[in-house]
């Protein structure tokens, strides 16, 4: 895999999530990108169970268990700012067994689904982020396959993002800064999705009407 940038695209003024996604994908198709199937990234939140918390009153850490259709045989378990574990999909069964230590937060499941587009060596995934029944936002993932060092190709990636996101082009993802010369890996993408989902969760107070 190559260097990947995950960002949120705000819903256009006076448009619905669906309409904004369509606008974006039409722009990509105009650019010459070709549809290549679909994708899905999901994330479930787990609390550290109350019974295991020490008497010092330390706050329970949140753990995120995620899947990515790009890696159908893997399961990702992440802590915020913490390590990322890449495991087989059997990990989901293990989590059920660990109920005494980690409890899944109610209605915490958040996911993004959409279409994959290929443009030259770029892979673009535009997805609708949903929590439960409602659409909460739009995710845009751009992967540049040939390059493995984030800092090497950020300028190039930025130029590409600008070509179809215009003024909504994001800044460099935080994970790019952490790992100066290291080879970019799938876990880095999952961390970006986790951060994006957390950001969107915080925006969830906005009533449905605000999303239109």
């Amino acid at each position, binding site marked *: *895999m*190559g260097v990947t940038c995950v960002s949120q695209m705000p819903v256009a003024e006076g448009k619905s999530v669906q309409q904004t996604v369509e606008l974006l994908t039409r722009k990509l198709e105009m650019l*010459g990108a070709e549809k290549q199937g679909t994708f899905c990234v999901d994330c479930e939140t787990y609390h550290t169970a109350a019974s295991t918390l020490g008497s010092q009153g330390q706050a329970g850490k949140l753990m995120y268990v995620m899947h990515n259709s790009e890696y159908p045989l893997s399961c990702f378990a992440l802590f915020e700012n913490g390590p990322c574990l890449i495991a087989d999909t059997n990990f989901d069964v293990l989590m059920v067994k660990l109920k005494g230590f980690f409890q899944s937060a109610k209605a915490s499941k958040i996911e993004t689904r959409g279409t994959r587009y290929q*443009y*030259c*060596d*770029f892979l673009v995934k535009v997805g609708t982020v949903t929590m439960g029944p409602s659409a909460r936002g739009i995710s845009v993932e751009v992967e*540049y*396959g*040939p*390059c*493995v*060092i984030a800092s*090497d*190709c950020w*300028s*190039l990636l930025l*130029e*590409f993002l600008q*070509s179809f996101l215009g003024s909504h082009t994001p800044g460099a993802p935080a994970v790019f800064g952490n790992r100066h*010369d290291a*080879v970019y890996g799938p876990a880095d993408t999952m961390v970006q999705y986790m951060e994006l989902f957390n950001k969107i969760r915080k925006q969830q107070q906005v009533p449905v009407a605000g999303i239109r």
Partner: protein
Amino acid sequence: MADVLSVGVNLEAFAQAISAIQALRSSVSRVFDCLKDGMRNKETLEGREKAFIAHFQDNLQSVNRDLNELERLSNLVGKPSENHPLHNSGLLSLDPVQDKTPLYSQLLQAYKWSNKLQYHAGLASGLLNQQSLKRSANQMGVSAKRRPKAQPTTLVLPPQYVDDVISRIDRMFPEMSIHLSRPNGTSAMLLVTLGKVLKVIVVMRSLFIDRTIVKGYNENVYTEDGKLDIWSKSNYQVFQKVTDHATTALLHYQLPQMPDVVVRSFMTWLRSYIKLFQAPCQRCGKFLQDGLPPTWRDFRTLEAFHDTCRQ
């Protein structure tokens, strides 16, 4: 009838010879008829045999007679002369029905055309030899034909020398690592890893570079049985483009007498791809054009350009 005379055929004898052939054929078939019919009914067995033998003898004699006649005539017919410029094909001109079978004129046309082709091919070969793209020094001009087929000295360098040249280049460029292997006898194969940007498979023949394939840093360069995969191309368009340019570079850097300089120049040029994703185009100032970064590196200045932005 001047044409006929020049062909040298005695027509009268020819006609006679044809009828002689016909006579011969019918006498031969009479022989077989007689054999087929066998002995006809006669009163006595003796009578039957006698009549059959007499009949058979008669038939054989007539075959003999006809054959002698044909032989005599065939001497009279004479041979078609061989001094016609197109040899036997010249006889096609005798065909009176030109409209239906224009073979002869077509033949002449084809002959002229092939003559011209040979002439032009000769000219082209002369010109191309002056600007040879072949990188070995052993084929200059026509005079080389006469020389005994000697291997050019640059092709028979000892492997130790090749190893030395390569390891010196390896030490010259810290961001470039070169791994040399000889999976197929004496010819070396190099796996060049340039930073964390790309990998290049270089197939050598002595110190000449025969082939290069550029792939991504994260792409597999080995086949299933663990050998260097020298045939499959990169999955990424950017490296396919760089592979094309590297092949062009092989033709550009040539100095048949100093192959080590050629390898060093090529590697120096290749090293400029360390900034493949970081260098904007020196002409248009952009990173991307049709989704590709500047994949061309100038042979002298090593500056980055898009394929379509270079002069």
